[in-house]
């Protein structure tokens, strides 16, 4: 009888998940520090040394006037923090949805959050092109409204069916996409339409400390809650019958997890537009590394998600002289990566 032997081994690539967590965390910290010194304005150690010299000769008060220091602290630092937060948030929402719906092809926008957010943002952009606060608020409100609509519709049709929930999400998504098309059709093709299109492609270039203060605590709380309750995702992923016989009330937990994930996605999308593929592909990367047990894969998913979006954003702002929209980077890297993971995990059941 095997007792202690393989208790912590995972069916993933690497047996020891603690090593994976340590390595990914190390990479994340490293990438974060490097990201602060990458950008159009200045890169590398030149910036660092100039900041250092200003501090040495003029003290802290001198820093306040130093352009390099300002770029570092009020542009790049919030931007990098937001990239990590949103990357973690979108990936964790993806992992939660995939577990709840027992389907690895589910992404966080299955219940219409992203479609609602996009419509809300477009509406905001048309109503007031300059006030980004309003655009974000509108995106956030419509995102949550879309999910609520999907949940209510599903409830109306059949109380506890997962398939009905997915179909309701499909209906809501289609409606909001159609509404978005109306807005695009009506929008001024020279000013409003490009704004909508760029917003949909996602970017962190407007990131400010204000966004970190607003989204940070809420996304952080959502992440903490999912981490705290992650073992329940294992049980819920067995399906309603088994979850019930193991003593859980699946509909209640499902609503809870959907609410938390939707909040995270709505916050993310309303701060930096739609960023595709992260929510789908990162949970698969985590499962490939440490196996499907949510106890181990949830922390790994969060760390990889943060790292992924941080690096994607670095690429977005350095690849060309103009900034690229984020979804171009995440789509071009995420989709082939997803294909590769499907190939690698072939024959192993769902990844």
């Amino acid at each position, binding site marked *: 009888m*095997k007792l202690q032997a393989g208790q912590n081994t995972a069916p993933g690539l690497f047996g020891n998940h603690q090593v994976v967590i340590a390595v990914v965390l190390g990479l994340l910290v490293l990438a974060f520090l490097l990201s602060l010194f990458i950008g159009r304005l200045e890169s590398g150690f030149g910036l660092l040394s100039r900041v250092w010299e200003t501090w040495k000769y003029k003290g802290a008060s001198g820093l306040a006037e130093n352009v390099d220091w300002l770029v570092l602290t009020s542009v790049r630092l919030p931007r990098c923090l937001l990239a990590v937060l949103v990357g973690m948030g979108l990936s964790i929402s993806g992992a939660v949805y995939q577990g709840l719906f027992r389907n690895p092809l589910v992404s966080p926008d299955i219940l219409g959050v992203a479609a609602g957010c996009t419509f809300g943002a477009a509406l905001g952009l048309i109503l007031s092109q300059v006030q980004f606060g309003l655009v974000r608020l509108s995106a956030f409100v419509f995102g949550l409204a879309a999910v609520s609509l999907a949940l209510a519709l599903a409830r109306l049709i059949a109380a506890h069916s997962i398939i009905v929930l997915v179909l309701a999400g499909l209906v809501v998504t289609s409606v909001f996409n159609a509404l978005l098309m109306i807005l695009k059709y009506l929008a001024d093709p020279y000013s409003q339409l490009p704004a909508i299109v760029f917003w949909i492609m996602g970017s962190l270039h407007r990131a400010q400390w204000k966004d970190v203060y607003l989204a940070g605590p809420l996304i952080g709380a959502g992440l903490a809650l999912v981490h705290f309750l992650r073992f329940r995702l294992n049980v819920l992923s067995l399906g309603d019958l088994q979850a019930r016989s193991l*003593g*859980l009330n699946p509909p209640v937990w499902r609503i809870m997890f959907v609410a938390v994930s939707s909040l995270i996605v709505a916050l993310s999308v309303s701060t930096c537009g739609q960023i595709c593929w992260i929510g789908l592909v990162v949970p698969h990367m985590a499962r490939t590394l440490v196996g499907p047990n949510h106890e181990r894969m949830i922390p790994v998913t969060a760390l990889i998600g943060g790292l992924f979006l941080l690096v994607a954003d670095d690429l977005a702002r350095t690849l060309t002289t103009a900034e690229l929209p984020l979804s171009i980077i995440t789509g071009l890297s995420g989709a082939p990566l997803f294909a590769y993971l499907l190939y690698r995990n072939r024959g192993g059941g769902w990844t």
Partner: protein
Amino acid sequence: MTLACSALRCGYGREPVLLDISFLVENGTFCAILGRNGSGKTTLLHCLGGILKPDQGRLELDGLNIARLSRQELARLVSLVPQESIDIFPFQVIDVVVMGRTPFLSLGQSPGRDDYRLAWQTLGLLEAGYLGERNFNKISGGERQIALLARALVQSANTILLDEPTNHLDFQNTYRLLGRIKELCRSRGLRAMAAIHDPNLAYLFSDQVVMLKEGRLLAQGPTEQIMTAERVSELYGTETLLAEVSRGLSLFFPALIKRYRS
């Protein structure tokens, strides 16, 4: 220590699937639930497991009213081995087994070292320790049933409900699994309630039978007394013979078999 079911009425919509079902099952008993397709076997198991709420009647487990227990409290006493379990993420078998500890964990708690030790011990008890680190989706149907039985044992030492446990098993595995369940009933005072299709398996392994016909109780009681050729004929709606195949061992055959083998 009794599971008592009295005047149970249960169903999904307005039409009851089960009507006026009453029986007692002591602990340490292997009870088979027999009946044709659609006779309400699974519904009865779901009722006993608290998955379905009865419309009427009373379910009592060791003196406790099941309707009064929370889902978590009930899950500590009654576990279910579902008919089929596939299409989940490729969990390791040990991760599936340890989920039997769910009703004992507080909110936000994950299984700890002791829970894993218990899971490994239970797999070992069923001589299935070798399965622990394998992919649950890639093991055979028989091995999967053993893993789910281990999970049920980890969950509850009181009552285990099994929904057609031998459905996907081959000839030898069928007998091994039922034999194991019977041993557990003897050695650990476990109460097992199993919906079974084959009357011979019930006849060979069970101590007690509950016969359901179109949602009503046809008969219930000790296997030896209740399972006569007449009753089995009535239960399945086809003439059935009980014939001695070797000394002290009799088996049921549908009479129409003679039409093909003579």
